[in-house]
């Protein structure tokens, strides 16, 4: 036992002396989680909570242009800057100067065209119902509202804004059409009970998150996504410290001396595993504590821990063992410290990219998703997403647990083969 204690103490001293390694293992993930969560949270708030500044020039000669502007104000999603003097080309030019995310130009014939189309459709409907004999055949004129986006606005954001404006104009057009129908039938305007029914017709959407369990719902947010994802990245990045440390000891001759001491080499490997297991678990603890206790104080969503604690513990341990085994594997096969650091870092970045740490795996093409299955980070992340976002438990974690276990075993076998060839064990 004294031998093991001495080995562990030596490893602890080496870790504490490795200042760069400590920064990479503890400070880098803290900064990554902190910065990326803030950035993603801000993007989320811009889209979902903040009002978008819209520059509008309403050149419509009729009343429907105003209806559109009022509907945009009423939606609560837009901060309207209206300047009806602007021509379409001026809107295009001025949108960026006015710090607006988009500019909308409503043409002078907007009401006229919209009313004309509504009139045509209502007459065709009345003809179909036999109320009038023959409706005039008029080609519908397309509405043209020009929307100019700030070039920095991303495509998915443009689509959602377009859909919102389209829904508002559809509503105006529908109301106008129903009005025309009643006019043709001899009413001055739409009866109030029907107007109210039109207003109330919207389908109510009950929006909630899918969950694998009925226990308290975990709300997906930037913290639930980023803290587990970057914790995994940090764990695997220990390849720089541990992999480099193994190469250094091997090249310095320490391993050679250990070969002459009974059980010396085996004890060194065991103590490295134990110390770096502690490092990995302490990294996770630090990042999770930051998510739970510090994030709420700086306006970020609080990290909610999964309800299934034992599965969480098993996934965490297997993730840590996979990371350590991979680092030892790189350290065992690398010929120089530079090779271990370079290959180790690049391989982890590639594993992270194909494993969905930066961009979710499901948005990747099928072949990339298939390639992503070889990344241990993908399976760690899958396990954590099952626990942190989907409220899953054992049955949903079989794939993750199996892969991480096999990955660890394969790494250990490869380490054993290499060390056996080199006569270390």
């Amino acid at each position, binding site marked *: 036992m004294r031998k093991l204690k001495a080995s562990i103490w030596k490893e602890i001293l080496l870790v504490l002396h490795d200042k760069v390694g400590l920064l990479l293992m503890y400070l880098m993930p803290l900064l990554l989680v902190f910065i990326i969560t803030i950035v993603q949270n801000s993007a989320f708030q811009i889209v979902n909570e903040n009002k978008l500044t819209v520059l509008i020039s309403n050149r419509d000669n009729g009343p429907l242009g105003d209806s559109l502007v009022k509907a945009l104000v009423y939606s609560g999603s837009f901060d309207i800057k209206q300047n009806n003097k602007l021509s379409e080309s001026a809107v295009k030019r001025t949108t960026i100067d006015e710090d607006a995310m988009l500019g909308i130009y409503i043409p002078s014939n907007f009401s006229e065209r919209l009313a004309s189309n509504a009139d045509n459709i209502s007459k065709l409907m009345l003809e179909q119902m036999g109320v009038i004999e023959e409706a005039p055949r008029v080609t519908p004129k397309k509405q043209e509202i020009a929307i100019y986006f700030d070039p920095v606005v991303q495509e998915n954001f443009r689509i959602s804004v377009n859909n919102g404006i389209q829904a508002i104009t559809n509503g105006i057009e529908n109301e106008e059409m129903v009005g025309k129908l009643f006019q043709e039938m001899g009413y001055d305007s739409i009866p109030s009970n029907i107007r109210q029914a039109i207003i109330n017709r919207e389908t109510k959407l009950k929006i909630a998150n899918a969950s694998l369990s009925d226990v308290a719902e975990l709300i997906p947010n930037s913290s639930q996504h980023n803290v587990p994802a970057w914790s995994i990245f940090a764990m695997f990045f220990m390849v720089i410290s541990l992999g480099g440390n193994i190469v250094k000891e091997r090249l310095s001759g320490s391993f050679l001396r250990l070969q002459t001491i*009974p059980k010396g080499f085996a004890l060194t490997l065991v103590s490295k595993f134990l110390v770096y297991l502690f490092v990995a678990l302490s990294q996770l603890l630090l990042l999770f504590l930051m998510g739970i206790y510090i994030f709420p104080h700086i306006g970020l969503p609080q990290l909610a821990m999964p309800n299934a604690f034992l599965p969480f513990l098993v996934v965490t341990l297997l993730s840590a063992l996979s990371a350590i085994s991979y680092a030892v594997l790189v350290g065992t096969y690398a010929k120089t410290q530079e090779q271990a650091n370079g290959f180790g870092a690049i391989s982890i970045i590639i594993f992270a990219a194909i494993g969905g740490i930066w961009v979710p795996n499901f948005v990747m093409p099928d072949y990339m998703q298939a390639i992503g299955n070889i990344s241990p980070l993908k399976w760690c992340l899958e396990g954590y997403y099952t626990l942190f976002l989907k409220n899953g438990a054992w049955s949903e974690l079989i794939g993750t647990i199996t892969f991480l276990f096999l990955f660890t075993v394969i790494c250990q076998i490869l380490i054993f083969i290499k060390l056996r060839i080199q006569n270390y064990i």
Partner: protein
Amino acid sequence: MPETLLHVSKVYKSYGKSAVPSLAGIDFTIAKGEIVGIFGPNGAGKTTLISILCSILEPTLGSVVYHLEGEKSPREIRNKLGFVPQDFSFFPELTAKQNLSYFGNLYNLKKEDLEQKIDDLLQKVGLFHVKNQKVSTFSGGMKRRLNLIISLLHDPSVLFLDEPTVGVDVQSKIAIMSLLQELNRQGTTIIYTSHHLKEAEEFCNQIILIDHGKIIASETLTNLLREHEVGNLEELILKLTGTLLRD
């Protein structure tokens, strides 16, 4: 008749699929208390032989038998061997004392004995005053002395040294050689390689000369010089191995 310590019989060693073995049938015997120098050109098989003798490598064929009192199992025998590699085999980030303490514990030495031993050894090689300094701050000579005493913590009966004085100043060299002579007087058998042939001439009482994986001479230095009619060890090696450059 001196007591036999080590008997090496028909030792062969080849690596992988290499057609040429590193060692091709090595036989010799070493008596207790001797200082044996193993010499030969680069690639002759010296490092492979020493690695086999101190159980880092296993021979492909042949046997290495130690006759150590009470030590029967390979583990017990290993505990009686000390190896000083040519490379600095310690942790430069740690202090001298932390290094010695770590390796001493791996030899399972009792805490009080170990502390006493560490202090004694540090005193002997003049490193006591820097025992709490990081080894990375040491000069080459200080590192070489530390490299030596790490291997002495467990009082080995047989000490293997691979170039123990390479790259050190004359003061460190004297300190190292004096300590080795003192150990030998106390009964430690020393097996040693070096390219400092003048130093080896003064230090060794037995010479083993190997080339191409075979022993080409094994005797006391005096007998070898007389037999081959040469004046010193360097002339002997050149006469027996030639002047052709080796890779």
